[in-house]
C-alpha cells in the first residue's frame, strides 16, 4: 500500500540518492572534506548527484570509519556500512561503501542492481543500487528499496565505474523501517551481506 512521505523526509532520504567514490570515479563529480569537530567522530562530506527529480543533488556527512563491514564476493573487496539511520517513523537511510583492498581495479556495473525493476518500470536507469535489501531476522521480513510514485527507485546510481585499489565507491538507498524494537538488520547485496548492522536514530 502506498505511503506518503513529507517533503522534508524525502529531502533527508535524498541525502543517500547519489553515487560517488573517493577518487578514481568516472561517474558524478563529488567533493570531499573533513568536517568533524574535535569532540566528535570525524566525518567526510560528500556531494552526491541524485537519480530522483525530487532533488538534483545533496550533501551528506559520513563517518570516516564504517559502522559495520564484511568481505564481498570479489577477492580483496569489502562492503562497509557508513550509516543506517531511522528517518522519522517510517524510513531507514543506508549508506554503503564498496572498498577495494585488492591489487587490481574493480569495475562496478550491475552488482547492486535489481534487474526486475527494469521489467516492471520502463525507463528505469541502469546500474542502480536497487538490489540492496534489509533482512529483519527477528520478524523474517525483507525490506526492499522504496519506489516513488513513478516507479523510480529511491536509491543511487552505483555503476559503471572503476574502483581503484585503496578506493571506496558509495551507494545509498531508502527503505521502509522495521518495527520499533528492532535494533539490527542484515544488509544484503548481490555481492555479499553485512549481518547485524545496528540501526541508529537520526
Amino acid at each position, binding site marked *: *500500500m*502506498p*505511503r*506518503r*512521505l*513529507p*517533503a*522534508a523526509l*524525502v529531502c533527508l532520504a535524498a541525502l543517500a540518492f547519489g553515487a560517488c567514490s573517493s577518487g578514481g570515479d568516472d561517474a558524478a563529480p563529488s567533493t570531499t572534506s573533513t568536517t568533524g569537530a574535535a569532540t566528535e567522530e570525524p566525518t567526510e562530506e560528500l556531494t552526491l548527484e541524485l537519480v530522483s527529480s*525530487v532533488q538534483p543533488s545533496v550533501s551528506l556527512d559520513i563517518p570516516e570509519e564504517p559502522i559495520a563491514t564484511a*568481505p564481498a*564476493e570479489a577477492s580483496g573487496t569489502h562492503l562497509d556500512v557508513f550509516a543506517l539511520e531511522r528517518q522519522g517513523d*517510517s524510513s531507514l537511510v543506508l549508506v554503503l561503501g564498496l572498498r577495494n583492498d585488492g591489487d587490481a581495479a574493480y569495475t562496478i556495473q*550491475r*552488482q547492486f*542492481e*535489481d*534487474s526486475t525493476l527494469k521489467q516492471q518500470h520502463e525507463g528505469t536507469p541502469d546500474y542502480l543500487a536497487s*538490489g540492496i535489501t534489509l*533482512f*529483519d*531476522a*527477528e*520478524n*523474517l*521480513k*525483507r*525490506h*526492499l*528499496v*522504496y*519506489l*516513488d*510514485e513513478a516507479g523510480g527507485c*529511491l536509491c543511487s546510481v552505483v555503476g559503471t565505474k572503476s574502483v581503484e585499489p585503496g578506493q571506496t565507491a558509495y551507494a545509498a538507498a531508502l527503505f*521502509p523501517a522495521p518495527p520499533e524494537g528492532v535494533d539490527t538488520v*542484515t544488509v*544484503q*547485496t*548481490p*555481492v*555479499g*551481506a553485512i*549481518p*547485524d548492522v545496528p540501526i541508529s536514530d537520526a
Partner: protein
Amino acid sequence: MPDRRALAALVALLAWSAPHAAAQVDELDADEVEARILDVEPRILDVEARIVDVVVPGADRTEIPIGADVLFAFGSADLTPEARQQLAGVVDRIRADGPSTVRVEGHTDSVGDDATNQVLSERRAAAVQAELAGQLPGLAIEAVGFGETQPVAPNELPNGEDHPGGRQQNRRVTIVLVR
C-alpha cells in the same frame, strides 16, 4: 470574486505542478508570485513501502528461504558467528508451528563446478541442521543439498552477462517445515 493575491497563489501552484501553466505566471507580478509560493504547503510524495514476508506458507509445508550470504562466508560451509542470531526467527517460527519434521535444503549459484557446489550445498545444509538441532532437541531434522540444480533466478542475463542479483537469490538455505 477572488482577490488578485489569492489568484496569484493558485496560478503559482499550478505552474509548479504543471509546466503548461507557466505562461500564465508571466502575466502576474513576479514578486507577488514568489512571495505566495513560500506559503504553499510542502509537496507530498507517494512512495511504495515494499516489505516482503520471507516465509512462504503452503498447504502441507512452509518454506523459509534464508540467503546463504547471511549464514556463511563465500565458499564456506562454516556458520558465521552471527548465524545463530540470523536463525533466531526461524527457530521461533518452528516452535510456533510445531511441524512433524524439518527439512534443510542447501542450494548454490552456478559459480564453480557442479561437484564442488553439490558438496558445498550438502555441507551447508548439514551445518544449519546441526544448529537447529541444538536449539530444538527432539525434533526430526533432515538435511539435503541440491548444488546449483534448482535455481530460483537466472544466474546470467539474457545477453550472457553475469547476473549477481540472480546468483544471490540462488545461494540459499531453505528451511522447510512439514506438517
